[in-house]
Structures are given as C-alpha cells and as structure tokens.
C-alpha cells in the first residue's frame, strides 16, 4: 500500500483504540476498547489480522511482553502506533471531516 493511502474502517477503529490505550495496548485491551466504544463484538482473530496487516504497512510496531500465569504462561504482545501510522490516522480523519463538512446528517436522513 502506498504512503498516501487511507485506512479501512476496521483499521481506523483499531488504530484509534491503540492511540487511546497507549502503553496498555495488547489483544485483550484493544478488543475490549472496541467493544466498549462501538458496541460491536470484535473477534480476537479480526483484531490480530488487522494488527498484522497494519504492522506490515509500518503503521504499528509490536513487542513481546513477559509471560503471565493468568494467560497460561503465555506472553502478551503489545502494540504501539508509529509516526507513519499516526499520519495515516490523521489523513483518514481529515478525509472524513472534509466529506462530512457542510452536511446536516441528522436533518437530511432522519
């Protein structure tokens, strides 16, 4: 994907969840944040597939945490947004704002 491209809908949501969670962002917290704020149940597989894609694009970076007993001795994988990723979020957001500008959505379609 080229540098100037926009994020997809779920990619955008995942990136915003990562930005909100900052240092605490890993699979469980990202999934719960999405569920809490959007009201839709996201599968952990969808979250990881998206994070994997974003990491390949260079929008996020991951690091392995320490194994913990409540996870059956498995390690967490923490994610953070890169500068390139933050630029993609801004670009997508600006595009949305520009498209919505001047529209009275509530009055036009209610």
């Amino acid at each position, binding site marked *: 994907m080229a540098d100037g491209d926009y994020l997809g809908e779920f990619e955008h949501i995942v990136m915003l969840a990562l930005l909100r969670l900052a240092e605490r962002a890993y699979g469980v917290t990202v999934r719960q944040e999405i569920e809490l704020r959007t009201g839709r149940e996201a*599968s952990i597989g969808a979250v990881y597939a998206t994070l994997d894609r974003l990491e390949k694009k260079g929008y996020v970076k991951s690091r392995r945490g320490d194994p913990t007993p409540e996870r059956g001795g498995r390690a967490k994988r923490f994610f953070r947004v890169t500068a390139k990723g933050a630029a993609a979020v801004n670009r997508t957001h600006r595009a949305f704002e520009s498209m919505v500008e001047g529209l009275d959505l509530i009055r036009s379609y209610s």
Partner: protein
Amino acid sequence: MMPPPRFAAWMVSLFAPPEQAESILGDLEEEFLLLGPRSGLASARRWYWRQSVRTSAHLLRSGFRDAPWSTALAVLGGFFLLRLAHWLPGQLLNAVTDRYLMYWSNHFHAYLWVLKALIPTYLLGTFLTGCCVALVTKKREMIATMAMALVLLAMIFVGSLSAMIMTGDANYLRSLFWASSDPLAIVMGGMLVGRLRSKNTPLPAA
C-alpha cells in the same frame, strides 16, 4: 477455575500462524478467566467457543487473502499429486495381482484382495497428499488443505448430483458419504503437519 475448552483452543492453534498463536491463545484464556467469575462458567465457555470459531474463520480468510496465488498453486499441485496418489497404488496392486494370479485358489479372491487393499491405499494416498500440500505451504497448512478439501468436495458433489440426474440412480447421492472421506483425509493431513509445526504452542491444561 476451569480451563477453557481444549478443543476450541486446539482449533485456534491450527489456524493461527505460529508467531501469533501464543498471543491469541493467551488473550483468549485471559478473557475467559475474567469472564468466568463475572458471568458464570457456562457463559464463559460459550464466549470462548464463539470467539474461537470467529477467530479461526478470520485467520482462514486473512491467510488466504495474504497469499492467494501461492495457496492456489499449492492446491493445484495437490490435485496433480492426488491423481498420482490414486493412480499409482491401483497400478501396483494390479501388477502384483497379475504376477501372482496363478497362486490364488481362484481369481475371485485375487480381485477381492485388490478391492480391499485399494480403499485404504487410496485414503492413505489422499492423507499423504494433504501432508505434502501442508508442507509446501508453510504457516498456511490449514488454509491450503481446507481450500483443497472444499474444492474436492464441491467437485464430488457436482459429479454425484449430475450422475444421479442423468441415470436416475439415487445410489450416486448415497456414495457422497463415502466420497467425503477424501476431503476429510486431506484436512487431517494438514492438521497433522500444522500441529507438528506448532507443537511449541501449549494448549490450556486439561
């Protein structure tokens, strides 16, 4: 607290790439343990199953989307291999039977032997084909073998249905049950290779 459903965890471990399997299974177990005391064990188990099925479907879809051409090529190669695996045992058994026919008490026993020996060798050949397809598609064993099994199942279904329509013989449709053992053997080959590759990923304790 009870451990999460082992079979569901095993299913996720089959579809998850090795580098993701540990964190995905860890995340699922962590949420399961949080959910248990809050909503009850039955509800937590239901959640775990729902998440596992949806996660496996997502991983299957994204795996195919990430490498559609190499997966398609592996499936195509698998079909050539399958043809060989079904043709070769028949030829070998025929050669053996023809060579030693004179020692059999009657010909009927010889052909019965061929027939009995062919079914397991066919299945073994199919299973080994599944293993080969899984071996060449590193980290995507289940994606490639599931794709091949689904294509084969569709071919068998269409073939049986058209044969039944043309001849009016319902036995063709009944034979579907036995014919579906081939796609199953392919998936089992993929499962074996996938499990051997990800044996370092521990499943929840029983």
